[in-house]
């Protein structure tokens, strides 16, 4: 027995393909072919999804200006959403940007899109009561390094070989972006409902990755210091507490 692929409904085939003729069996009121009437659906689908991308990637749309429509049109026709929850749409856009010929001269655009995706994920992430700073302050120094710190569901980390947060900030504020500075690691914290990106000092990303992998603070700190000898643990812990990036503290 061979299993035949599910039939594509005739209405659907040309929906994302402007070069295809309208499907058969569609009528204008006089019984004639639907013509432009089918194009209304075609336009609604493409423009609706393009608009969803534009609201999901506002800074990318700002820097690409008119070319964003070209990018979005090409993306929606090849990558329609896999869910009706459009707040998740565009996870494949950074990868698509890496192969999109017009972006070849600006390879940092893909990481800019990754930063915007991470900000959007943070915005919709679950709420969780933050760890009160005094809980951490009251841990005896000899036990601190055995503590497991839980990161907030809204915390995100974006690492880039480009100065992605500087680029994002410049574009948002209307300055000409320059990609010359060294790469940046970005920590996204959501103290209330608005995610805020912060540039991480060297070693910070290493510590956060170790914590999120379940390591206690001691080994995580050692890894961070190995990556960046000047790593300042208390500065990062203060930043996390202030930005409500920690939600719990446990011991083995």
């Amino acid at each position, binding site marked *: 027995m061979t299993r035949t692929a599910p039939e594509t409904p005739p*209405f659907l085939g040309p929906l994302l393909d402007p070069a295809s003729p309208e499907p058969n069996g569609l009528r204008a009121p006089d019984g004639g072919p639907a013509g432009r009437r089918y194009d209304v659906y075609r336009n609604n689908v493409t423009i609706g999804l393009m608009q969803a991308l534009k609201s999901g990637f506002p800074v990318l749309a700002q820097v690409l200006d008119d070319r964003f429509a070209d990018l979005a049109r090409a993306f929606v026709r090849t990558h329609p959403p896999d*869910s009706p929850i459009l707040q998740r749409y565009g996870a494949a856009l950074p990868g698509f940007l890496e192969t999109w010929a017009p972006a070849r001269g600006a390879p940092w655009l893909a990481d800019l899109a990754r930063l915007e995706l991470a900000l959007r994920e943070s915005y919709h992430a*679950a709420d969780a009561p933050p760890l009160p700073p005094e809980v951490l302050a009251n841990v005896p120094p000899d036990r601190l390094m055995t503590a497991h710190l839980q990161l907030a569901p809204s915390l995100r980390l974006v690492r880039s070989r480009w100065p992605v947060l500087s680029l994002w900030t410049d574009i948002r504020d209307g300055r000409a972006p320059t990609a010359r500075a060294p790469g940046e690691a970005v920590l996204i914290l959501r103290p209330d409902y608005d995610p805020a990106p912060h540039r991480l000092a060297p070693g910070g990303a290493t510590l956060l990755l170790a914590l999120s992998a379940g390591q206690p603070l001691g080994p995580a700190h050692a890894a961070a210091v190995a990556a960046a000898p000047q790593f300042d643990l208390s500065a990062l812990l203060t930043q996390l507490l202030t930005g409500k990036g920690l939600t719990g503290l446990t011991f083995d």
Partner: protein
Amino acid sequence: MSTAGPIPRDRLPPAPGVGFKARHFAAIMDDPGPVEWLEIHAENYMGDGGRPLSQLSTLADRFPISVHGVGLSIGGEGPLDPGHLDRLSRLMGWLAPASFSEHLAWSTHEGAYFGDLLPLPYTQATLDRVAAHIDVVQDRLGRRMLLENPSSYLAFAESDRSETEFLTDLVARTGCGLLLDINNVFISATNLGLDPRAYIDAVPTGAVGEIHLAGHDEDHDDSGRPLLIDSHNRPVADPVWALYDHALARFGPVPTLIEWDTDVPDWPVLAAEAARAARALGQQAAA
């Protein structure tokens, strides 16, 4: 229109509501004016947390909420997406809204979502399929749902019955109610050369649990005939208000939503549209 006591939040009042937009949150909480209930798109509140769910929770403490789905694809060929039904069921569970509605349309196929409400032919086969999908939704949610009539730009050669016959049969078979979108009736009737009043007169009384009003754009087809586009980007057109009066005369006062989803105006503009609906409802109640 405001009532002295707390508003019952388990049903929509026969009064104006609006489609909720986050930018209007402060204005609504400060003074909702003629607006007595709110509608949200289910899919916009299926995240895990953050401001959208917090705002919705705050609004639901004060206003009856209508949950309006755009992603179930009830008119689709395949079975309903169980994951999406789960998400919807979760939202309906914690929110306990006054109403749930979806569309006589499809929007997904084989897991891909098209972000638009796409049409289906009206035949016995599609009637059986849509009725089965409505049964699944009503069983899963444990409540009656409302089904919204679409805006049509074309007709299917294979359709062998009218949209109102199709909807009437669905109501009889599934026990669902109808969300009558008056703007969609006007658009479809204009685009397909039908009489919009005759459409309204063919909708079963007693089934209409909600009315939608919205603005539309005007275009033309290849032959120069009017082609109205359901754009939700401007005030409700005068002929749609007139058709609304005709519908109220048939159905009595019905919860009425002003939809404005693109080029969303400042709150006073939207509140003025709701006030116009309130006057029409008031005249109907007094008649």
